[in-house]
């Protein structure tokens, strides 16, 4: 073995396999430059370590010694089709991706003024539209003077920029609207995938998008996704994300949204699965009257580790932000919530609320909660609260005073605690999927779920 090889980090070997795949001789120069920029940045950062403030509770060093070469794209379509049907999406508008690449034979695309389909196709057919937006990405994630101790998802975003070849794209012309919800179903067989989504809504355009992140097997997966969202003036996006990987898999995601004047972004995330998941939801309220509502539910059970980071930047006056994130941890599960709200000097009359509530069902479970506010304007209303602990004692008494035994009352309140976020969904398919997941996991949940369906059926 020569000296150079000895100095090579173990993960560099598997990353080389990615570099070979994405070399396209006919790619536009700017894209090749962007990829090289991504490689450069990733090589400079490496995988983040726990000295970085935003990675204090989440350890990803095992990725260095794992091998996640690009997943094989020749997959079993029947298995994927069966999964689509099992999710109840066979009749829904959908973009289906397997291992990060859009599969037309599994998708059902709506017709709309604009473009809905594969990111790779969009890049080929309308590179200028994509390029204009990727410039913004470069500013967001690939900051010029990165402070190594203040990194969020930048190393992973850089890696995605270097490696991504496809993802879902939704580009709506001004005043265009998706008539039905669009489901974006990401499915993975094994190995590594780096999907990249792009949602651009023109002025007064409107859409409902549900993203699913699902394992197709018991094999470990490393998925490193970016979703870039731009909402034009008065546009509205309702974006829900359901993550249910198998317990061997790694999921890293950055969702970053720019909201312009009077536009509204509703983001719901439901983190159920994975061995380790880390999601950064970054929202910039860039112009007066823009608005965002984020709801999250994370359920680290067993030995799962689920980390939800949010950052909302109020960059203009008269913007509204709301956050409700709830965690339930059991066994040795570990959860992290880090929510940050930044209010710029000019962002007068900011109206912001951040609520984070957590319940631990086992004495070995852990949730680290860290709400952060940084305010430079003087006329603002910013509220935040964070709790970790037990069930509400007044509610316990209420249930028991009607005759319910302690265990039954606890089960109902734990269910209610998690279901509060589920009830914010716009979609029956999502609601039903999530309640089924709660039924499987929460103590006594199966009984609550079946009796509740029973009563619905009785009507």
């Amino acid at each position, binding site marked *: 073995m020569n000296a150079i090889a000895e100095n090579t980090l173990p993960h560099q070997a598997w990353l080389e396999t990615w570099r070979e795949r994405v070399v396209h001789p006919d790619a536009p120069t700017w894209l090749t430059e962007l990829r090289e920029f991504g490689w450069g940045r990733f090589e400079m950062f490496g995988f983040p370590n726990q000295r970085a403030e935003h990675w204090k509770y989440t350890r990803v060093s095992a990725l260095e010694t794992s091998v996640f070469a690009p997943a094989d794209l020749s997959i079993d379509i029947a298995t994927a089709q069966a999964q689509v049907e099992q999710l109840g999406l066979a009749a829904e508008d959908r973009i289906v991706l397997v291992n990060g690449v859009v599969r037309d034979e599994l998708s059902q695309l709506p017709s709309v003024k604009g473009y809905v389909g594969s990111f790779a196709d969009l890049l080929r057919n309308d590179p200028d539209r994509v390029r204009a937006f990727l410039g913004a990405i470069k500013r967001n994630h690939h900051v010029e003077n990165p402070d190594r101790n203040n990194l969020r998802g930048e190393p992973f975003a850089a890696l995605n920029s270097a490696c991504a070849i496809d993802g879902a794209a939704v580009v709506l012309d001004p005043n265009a609207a998706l008539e039905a919800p669009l489901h974006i179903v990401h499915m993975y067989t094994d190995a590594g995938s780096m999907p990249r989504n792009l949602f651009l809504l023109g002025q007064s355009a409107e859409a409902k998008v549900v993203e699913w992140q699902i394992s197709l097997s018991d094999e470990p997966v490393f998925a490193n996704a970016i979703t870039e969202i731009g909402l034009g003036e008065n546009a509205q996006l309702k974006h829900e994300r359901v993550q249910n990987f198998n317990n061997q898999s790694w999921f890293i995601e950055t969702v970053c949204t720019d909201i312009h004047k009077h536009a509204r972004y509703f983001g719901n995330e439901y983190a159920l699965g994975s061995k380790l998941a880390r999601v950064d939801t970054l929202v910039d309220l860039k112009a007066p009257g823009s608005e965002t509502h984020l709801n999250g539910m994370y359920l680290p059970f067993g030995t799962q580790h689920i980390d939800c980071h949010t950052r909302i930047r109020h960059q203009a006056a008269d913007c509204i932000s709301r956050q409700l994130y709830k965690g339930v941890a059991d066994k040795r599960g570990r959860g992290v919530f880090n929510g940050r709200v930044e209010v710029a000097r000019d962002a007068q009359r900011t109206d912001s609320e951040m609520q984070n509530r957590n319940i631990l069902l086992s004495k070995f479970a852990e949730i680290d909660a860290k709400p952060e506010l940084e305010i430079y304007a003087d006329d603002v209303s910013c509220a935040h609260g964070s709790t970790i602990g037990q069930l509400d*004692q007044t*509610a316990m008494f209420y*249930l028991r005073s*009607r005759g319910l035994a302690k265990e039954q009352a606890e089960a109902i309140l734990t269910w209610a605690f998690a279901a509060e976020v589920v009830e914010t969904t716009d979609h029956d398919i999502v609601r039903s999927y999530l309640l089924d997941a709660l039924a499987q996991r929460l103590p006594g949940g199966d009984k609550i779920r079946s009796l509740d369906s029973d*009563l*619905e059926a009785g009507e």
Partner: protein
Amino acid sequence: MLKIENLHASVGDKAILKGINLEVKPGEVHAIMGPNGSGKSTLSYVLAGRDGYEVTDGSVTYNGEDLIEKDADERACDGIYLAFQYPVEIPGVSNSYFLRAAVNAQRKHRGEDELDAMGFLKLAREKAKLLELPDNLMHRPVNVGFSGGEKKRNEIFHMAVLEPQLCLLDETDSGLDIDALKTVANGVNSLRSPDRAMIVVTHYQRLLDYIVPDQVHVLSGGKIVKSGDKDLAKQLEAEGYGDLVAA
């Protein structure tokens, strides 16, 4: 049915009830009135068995049994019901689910068969009709997004379905306009029966125009300072609590 003797109770280190004596017979309606902080709600909580409300002296006997040592759910199964002043919101759990769980917990305790969905819905609809309860309240999450009046009506609805022997109504009238008050009072009156007793805790005389009590007691400083018939409530309304509280 209920016999309270020399009842002393504390919350934390604070003594709140300081020697209450009260006897309630089947079919009777007793009103407990008194100024804020007199211990009215504490009395309801102590009788219903809320954790943290500790009996330090005296006794409470219900149908010949010592009540104090029983947990809240056991008391409920024995027929004690508390209508809350501030009913609790339970998102994600439908009112009908919660109520059916409560009905079946109580039936099980009494050695009766549990009600299936159809059986329960039949019972619930019957009672809902009696109380003119909007149909959708049954299927919405418990108390979530209910108006003040709807929350109080829902408490009476639960009471109607559970058919308790001893009903404790904790400030069921506060925050209600006159129309809502009449609806709630009609519901309560329809549940009066020779085997059922009620203790109505209230700050305002107005409720007692609609739910006419057999006896009225004035609670002050943790003790009953005066008892009388329904005219006592009118006298209090006219003269205020001043003299009694000073006494």
